[in-house]
């Protein structure tokens, strides 16, 4: 009845309020917990979700209320997380990815969000269209092999 590889997914939708940053990272971390990740892997995931959701709140919607969508998928030990806003979008994605680059220094942004995502995840893809919105797609492979546990 059970497949050999554990597959699962979840989708989440919520308004771009800063109160929801903590909720979003806890929800994704809790979903991913079924793979029994290490504390470090769990912190990595919480952190990158926090980065991408915060960016949607601050840069995507510029503190206006819009919707944020998250889809997380589990496929064996592979976790993928997609975070989407329908906000301003990014003009120059390669500039945005530069460490320390921020378009809002007056808000005490560190410009380290994308750098952290790239460091903590195995793959980070940015799809963005100015005026349409942004989707961040991230993949992480858990080191601990939990499929065996899941398979029985």
């Amino acid at each position, binding site marked *: 009845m059970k497949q050999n590889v554990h597959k699962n997914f979840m989708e989440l939708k919520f308004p771009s309020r800063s*109160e929801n*940053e*903590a909720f979003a990272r806890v929800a994704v971390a809790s979903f991913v917990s079924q793979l029994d990740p290490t504390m470090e892997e769990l*912190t990595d995931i919480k952190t990158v979700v*926090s980065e991408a959701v915060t960016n949607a709140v601050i840069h995507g919607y510029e503190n206006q209320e819009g919707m944020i969508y998250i889809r997380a998928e589990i496929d064996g030990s592979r976790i993928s997380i997609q975070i989407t806003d329908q906000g301003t979008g990014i003009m120059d994605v390669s500039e945005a990815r530069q460490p320390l680059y921020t378009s809002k220094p007056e808000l005490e*942004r*560190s410009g380290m969000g994308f750098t*952290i995502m790239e460091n903590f995840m195995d793959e980070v893809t940015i799809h963005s269209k100015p005026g349409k919105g942004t989707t961040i797609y991230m993949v992480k492979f858990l080191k601990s092999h939990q499929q065996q546990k899941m398979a029985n």
Partner: protein
Amino acid sequence: MSLNLEMKHSRNVLVVRLNGELDHHTAEQVRYQIEDELGKDRYFHLVLNLKNLDFMDSSGLGMILGRYKKVSQLGGKMVLCSIQPSVYRLMEMSGLFKILPTFEDEQTAVSACGVAS
């Protein structure tokens, strides 16, 4: 909500203990409270005790760098202490320790400010 802040002082050093999670939502409140206290002109140096800080992201880094700029503009020193491993990892990755010294405990951190002033 998920961040609680305790302040105390030790001569001209303001010590701030951050308990909980420091993200964009909570960083704003921390910024205002620290600025408010520093505005009283009683202090010169700032120690952030992160012993009970369980989570931090780049918004936290931004807030810490912002305080560092303010404090050092006025000639004061800012140091960190008692950092948990997960927060330490983020700070190290971001190169924060190139500008901010960190100490094992609050007392050493406070003395470090004192000696330097």
